[in-house]
Each structure stands twice: as C-alpha cells, then as structure tokens.
C-alpha cells in the first residue's frame, strides 16, 4: 500500500509538470458459456485497466498502464503492469526528413505477422523512420512480467516455472529487428523481420545434456531464431493480399539413441522449422461495407514429439515453436504449432448507410475455420485427440460474431461458436467417444471512464 501511495504521488507530481496529461479507466466484463459433452462451464471475468499518458515535452512521452483481473468462478484476483515506457522522438525535417526514436521501459512488441511474438517486455527500442523505411530494433527481458499476463510457453520448464517469491513469467531474453518498406515496388510493401530469444531458465531447473533417465515431466532449454519475409499489396481494385514465410532455427533438447543399444540420452539437437501463410481480402464498400477474406496459415510439426512442447527423439526438430502464443479460434483455441488453418470470413455492417447514427458502428462477422495438423503428433490443445489416428483433419469451427461500439466509451461483442470435430469413426482424429460437438457463447462489454 505504501509503495502504491509513493507511486501515485510521483505520478501526480509528473502530471503537474507535464505539458499534457491524460488518463482513463477501462472496465471489461467477459461472460463465457462453454458447453461440451464432458461438462458445461460458466465463466465470468472482470478486468480493470488504468492508463496514464504524460507529454513531458513536444518530443518526450511517458505512458503507464496497469490492470487488475477478477475471476468470479475460481475466485482469484491478479494484477500487473502492462506498460511503463518513456519514449523520445527526434524528428529531423529537411530535404531528407526522418525520425529517430528511443523507448525504454516496459513496452509491447510484435513481429509483422503477430504469430511469432506479440508480447510485452522490459528493455529498450530504437526506431528509425523515413518515407521509405519504418524500422526498429528492440531488446528486452520477459522474466519481470507476471505469469498471468504472459503467453510465453515454449518448453516444459516454462509451464512448470513458479518462482516462490512472485508468480513471474518465464525468463527469456528477446531481440527483434523489423524492417518495413512501404510500397517499395509496384505498390507492394515488403517486411523483413529477425527475431531471436535466449532461454534464461536456471540450468538447475532443467534436464542436463547427457542425462539418460527419460522424464517427460521436465525438459531442457530452447533457444530460437526466426527470419521472416512478407509481402503485401493490392492485386486489383478492392482486392488485397498478404503473404509471409518464416524460417526458425535454434536448438532443443532431444532424447536420442545412446551408444549403448537400447538406452537413450538427452542431447541438444538443431531446429529447422517454418511457418507460412497468405490472406486474400476482397472489399465491397458499396454493399454494406462488407469484406470477404480467405486466410491460410501453416506451421510445421514433428511426428517425433512426445508432447507439443518437447519430447523430440530424433536428430533434429522440425516443430515450429513461436515465442508467444496468441490463440486462434473461439471454441477450439489452438496455437500455431503443428497446425494448418484455413479460414473463410465474411464481415459486413448492415447499417453502414445510416451515416452518423449509432447503428452505423454495428458489425456482423461469420467465419469458418478448418483445422489440420501438420504431422501426426500432438497439437497445443490435444484434449480428446486419438493418438492412434492417422488423420490430419481435426475439425471445423463455425462462428457468428456481433460487434457493436455505439459510443466512444462503450463497446460490446456477442460471439457464438460451434466446433464440429472429425470424430466420425474410431480411426478419426477424435473418436466418437472422446470428443463431441462443442459450443461457446461469449459476451464482452467494455466501458471507459
């Protein structure tokens, strides 16, 4: 409480000194009803986010944001700091205008796809922008974030990690370089990205190289490097595309045949994995401001894995492991590991003609997502998966989502989804007994004071 009072006093003093100051409190309520053949789950989460922005000068800014989350059913309360960053911009305006910027503190980073890294970290970032190039280099550490605010899950130790003093996120040192060349040729935009992460877990907590005792409850370290390239642009009037390819390399702990026949030994092996995808978007601005989108994304998987995180027993790994793990899908949430998705989406604003009214902001969205696995091993959410199956097709999810933001400070969303698993025979990806049709209804309400 004392620390909080001191922090509040500092922030109040800063607000007096700042050229401009703004703050807000966002209250989010999420109510979810999940119905599966195993159980029904009613889940309610309330989240409060307090943010403050200080303009210290024309070129220096400080932003801080914290949150508290209460879950009714457990019940539990968590809190954390999402952002505490000092940004300094140095624009140079002349014959060759450019902007040089610097950020330090806790800030949000993302690679251009959002599939490899979308996370907060503590560190520093250098930005350079000119009319032909937007670029930045960032270095940061994730071990001071709270685990509840983190989606980093790359190893078994990440899953097990529970420091006794505070519930902190897995410690990883992350470096990121992003280069965006807007309309570099024929109105096509090129993205180049290099992301790397070093596992900073204590060696005492992970399995050592040379160990022979097979133990899937613990694993080793995983260090990775990702090189990505993307191209996006316009193909015809109202017709756009995005495409990307990411190559991952690094090392992971594997259990290989030892020189003694019949025995196995833990050894670090190289990773050669990849992810690729494309998105085609067709806009119909005259017809209810609608949009038709086809997305396909695939990440490589490795059949020689015991679990989707670790347990490789080959000379190398081809399992793609993103650093952070945004989930895809409402009813059948999956992460982009050993997974291929094909998504068809159609969105429209039925009252787009009612310009200036609150109904103009109402949006309807239909989407169908087909899930396939890349190899015959586990996916991130393998509940009910038939281990003996040789089917790649996992099932299809169909969602109907309604988004409505009538006012600046009020927004709501109602999503209804159903997952139809591939459970038609005993040899399917799911057996008829292991998984039935799942339903999810989610209502979200957001209000800002």
């Amino acid at each position, binding site marked *: 409480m004392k620390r909080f009072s001191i922090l509040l006093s500092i922030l109040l003093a800063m607000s007096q000194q700042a050229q401009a100051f703004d703050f807000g409190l966002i209250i989010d309520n999420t109510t979810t009803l999940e119905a599966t053949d195993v159980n029904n789950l009613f889940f309610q989460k309330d989240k409060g986010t307090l943010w403050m922005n200080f303009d210290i000068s024309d070129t220096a*800014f400080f932003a801080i944001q914290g949150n508290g989350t209460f879950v009714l059913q457990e019940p539990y309360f968590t809190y954390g700091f999402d952002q505490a960053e000092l940004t300094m911009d140095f624009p140079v305006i002349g014959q060759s205008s450019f902007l040089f910027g610097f950020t330090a503190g806790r800030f949000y980073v993302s690679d251009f796809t959002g599939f490899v890294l979308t996370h907060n970290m503590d560190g520093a970032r250098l930005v350079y922008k000119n009319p032909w190039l937007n670029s930045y280099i960032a270095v940061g550490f994730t071990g001071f974030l709270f685990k509840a605010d983190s989606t980093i899950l790359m190893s078994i130790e990440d899953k097990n990690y529970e420091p006794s003093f505070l519930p902190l996120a897995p410690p990883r040192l992350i470096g990121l370089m992003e280069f965006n060349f807007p309309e570099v040729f024929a109105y096509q935009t090129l993205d180049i990205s290099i992301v790397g992460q070093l596992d900073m877990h204590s060696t005492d907590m992970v399995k050592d190289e040379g160990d022979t005792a097979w133990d899937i409850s613990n694993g080793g370290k995983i260090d990775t490097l990702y090189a990505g390239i993307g191209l996006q642009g316009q193909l015809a009037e109202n017709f756009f595309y995005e495409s990307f390819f990411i190559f991952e390399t690094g090392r992971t702990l594997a259990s290989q045949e030892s020189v003694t026949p019949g025995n196995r030994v833990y050894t670090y092996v190289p990773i050669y994995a990849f992810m690729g995808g494309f998105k085609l978007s067709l806009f119909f601005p005259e017809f209810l401001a609608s949009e038709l989108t086809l997305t396909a994304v695939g990440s490589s998987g490795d059949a020689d894995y015991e679990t989707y995180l670790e347990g490789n027993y080959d000379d190398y790994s081809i399992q793609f492991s993103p650093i952070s793990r945004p989930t895809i899908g409402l009813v059948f949430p999956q992460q982009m590991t050993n997974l291929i998705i094909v998504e068809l989406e159609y969105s429209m604003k039925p009252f787009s003609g009612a310009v200036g009214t609150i109904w103009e902001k109402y949006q309807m969205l239909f989407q169908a997502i087909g899930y396939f696995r890349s190899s015959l091993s586990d996916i991130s959410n393998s509940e009910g998966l038939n281990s003996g199956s040789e089917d790649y097709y996992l099932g299809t999810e169909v969602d109907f989502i309604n988004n409505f933001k009538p006012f600046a400070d009020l927004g709501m969303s109602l999503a209804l989804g159903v997952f139809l698993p591939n459970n038609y025979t005993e040899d399917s990806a799911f057996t008829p007994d292991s998984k039935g049709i799942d339903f999810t209804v989610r209502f979200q309400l957001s209000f800002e004071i």
Partner: protein
Amino acid sequence: MIVINEKEKCVKRKILILSLCIFCITLTAIFAQSNDTIDQLLAEQKATYGKSVLMVLSASNAVPITSTIDAAMKKLEESKWIIGKKAEDPITLGELSFIMMKAFNLSGGVMYAIAPGPRYACREFEFRGFILRNAAPDRSVTGEEVVQMLGKVLSQQEAVK
C-alpha cells in the same frame, strides 16, 4: 408608354448589374477575410481562441461569415460553453473539440452525456477519427490541426445530409 417601359428596363438592368457587382465585391471581401483568418490560423504553432472560435462558429452558422473575432468571442461567452477565455489565449484540444461538439450539435458517448466537457468531447473526436495524433485533452493544437479537424467535421456533416 413604350419609351417609358424601355427606360424602366434599362434602369432595372443597371440596378441588376450594380447589385451583381456589389455582391461580387462583398463576396470577394468575405472570402478575403475568411482566407486571411485561415492563413493567420495556419501560421499559429499554438492556435489561439479568437481565430479558432471564429472559424468554428462561422462554419456552423452560429455567427455570420462576416463576423469578427470579438463578435465570435462574445457569442462564445454568451453560450457559456467555455467561459473566462480571451481571444489571444491558446486553445487546448479538449476545448476545441467541446466547442465543435456544441457548435455542430454533435452527440457524444455515455460519459459525455453524464459530464459534458472538453475531456469527453476529446474522446468522442478521437473515436470519430477527427484527431490524427495524441488525443490528450489538455495539449495545445496547431492552427493546421484546427483547420483539419474542422474540415473533417464538415465532411461528416455533409455525409449525414
């Protein structure tokens, strides 16, 4: 009689031509005055109340297009939207948004309905896409921003019609 009619026609034609000339001269003067105000406003690194309020109130027909800064400030005082400001005072983003909300009779969000003022007017303008950068209500605005914001409001008003 015929001669008189022709004389009348001639006089009427002269009056019409004279009226057109006067109208054109007046219109030119109005545009010149308006252009002068815009030019002066565009040159301001920290937009002042006088010119900003004159632009907003004349665009919303709250004051005539021929009005002066003093008349616009008087109108602002009378409206009691914002009080105690002088023409040469710098205007903040929140105050400018609030004056525009009131002048164009725009509706706001839930919090604006509960506590109408610069803070929530600014949020509404950010939501509507009228503010292109940093939406802190108490930051100063440039003259260029005032003209841009006014342009966006007028475009939306036109679209609604």
